């Protein structure tokens, strides 16, 4: 089996990192790869774990806001890579796309380097985020077009 990768124990939640991991998780492998191609090739990395497919049990809440319950599982692929320089990147992404998980882990490692972060955010993360936001906005506009005003027939005497 796989060794447990080096753990940055006690890592505090980093909103910026959470955001790029979320954007990468929602993107597909081809879109991430296409963005990466526009950059100078990243330094070599080695896989510390995976990519490997597994399951995450998705939970809901009783009544939507009460105690948790187990709704059902979903497939998830995880990957951990290490750059030659030393940074370790992680990815947990829905589905079974090994290439996507590895690309996301690689980017997570690269983005932790302050020297590269700005360029990567501007050329990879922000364009992906913008495409996702545009798709979400289009769905919201489609939903808005189905807004219905029900009229009640009231007879007044």
């Amino acid at each position, binding site marked *: 089996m796989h060794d447990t990768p080096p753990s940055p124990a006690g890592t505090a939640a980093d909103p910026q990192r959470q955001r790029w991991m979320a954007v990468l998780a929602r993107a597909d492998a081809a879109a991430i790869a296409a963005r990466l191609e526009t950059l100078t090739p990243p330094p070599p990395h080695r896989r510390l774990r995976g990519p490997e497919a597994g399951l995450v049990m998705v939970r809901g809440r009783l009544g939507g806001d009460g105690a948790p319950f187990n*709704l*059902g599982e979903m497939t998830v692929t995880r990957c951990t890579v290490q750059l030659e320089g030393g940074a370790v990147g992680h990815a947990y992404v829905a589905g079974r796309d090994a290439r996507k998980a590895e690309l996301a882990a690689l980017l997570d490692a690269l983005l932790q380097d302050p020297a590269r972060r700005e360029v990567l955010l501007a050329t990879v993360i922000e364009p992906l985020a913008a495409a996702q936001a545009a798709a979400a906005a289009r769905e919201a506009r489609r939903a808005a077009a189905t807004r219905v005003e029900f009229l009640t027939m009231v007879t007044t005497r």
Partner: protein
Amino acid sequence: MYVAVKGGERAISHAHAWLAALRRGEAAVPELELAQIREQLGLAVDRVMAEGACHDPDLAALAIKQACGDLIEAAFLLRAYRTTLPRFGASLPLDTARMRLWRRVSATYKDLPGGQLLGPTFDYTHRLLDFSLAAPGAPPPAPAEEACAAAAAAPRVSDLLADEGLMQPEPRAESEPPDLTRQPLACPAARPLRLQALARGDEGFLLALGYSTQRGYGNAHPFVGEIRQGAVAVEFTPPELGFPVQIGEITVTECQMVNQFLGSRTEPPQFTRGYGLVFGRGERKAMAMALVDRALRAGELGEEVTAPAQDQEFVLYHADNVEATGFVEHLKLPHHVDFQSELENLRGIRAAAQAAAATLPEAAE
């Protein structure tokens, strides 16, 4: 008793080869691609993911193809596949209040904050066969779009009632919920376990039970407080990171059934909730689940348990179609030894009865 048998390998392999040919159908007709099933038979995919209790649209599409469209067989295939994968952990509970809504309707309020959004629904269609779909044609025009206020707030209907103190609150305990995939079902089952069983239960079974509560088997007077359907983020805390990260978005359907409750010694008269939540766009399933969830709460709300839908053991032990099909369908497997003993038993009883009759004069008339 089922006794394993040997032999028949040749016949079995020939039967499976014929099944494979039948699955493919007429060779002149183009073969189905998984993407076609995933994109164009989305509600079948959703049902297989819900009853297979495993969210993966591509795997569900493969299962549907392999099962020749038999959705229970497809759910079975998905359940079998999931056992080959390691469990990384559990997600944070979904926050359905933050769902990106496609659809949101309430039968209890005409005007409500956020409005009524019909979304992509069969409701209000005329249920006339559309023969224009019989021949391939140009794709339909893009759906209409209308400007909407950014992040139009759509609070839950249950929250609106709760603000007035008229909705029984759900205790917000953060205890680890029981898991049917780890421990077998045992009754009495707490509500989290019941909801897990219902979420993966057979849509047809739950539909019939829900319907029975409306027809008088169990005292229900439900309203659809709210149905919401859309994409919701799944967050998971990887142990190596120690903070939650979003791992993707999934489509779910949620149903809040609002029911009257007359109150008890400890609780005032108020509304209570039946709750349904399913993977995908399985709205009928979410509604049926909510009806049955409420019926199963009869005991804890001090109501009389009289109807099948209120009987935990009856509902929970029979809702799982993979288990049900396993036990029903095993009857067709060889029971030769079993039946041989029954046969000998019956012949013996008959022989004894005939022998007894022969010794008794005029026993026949």
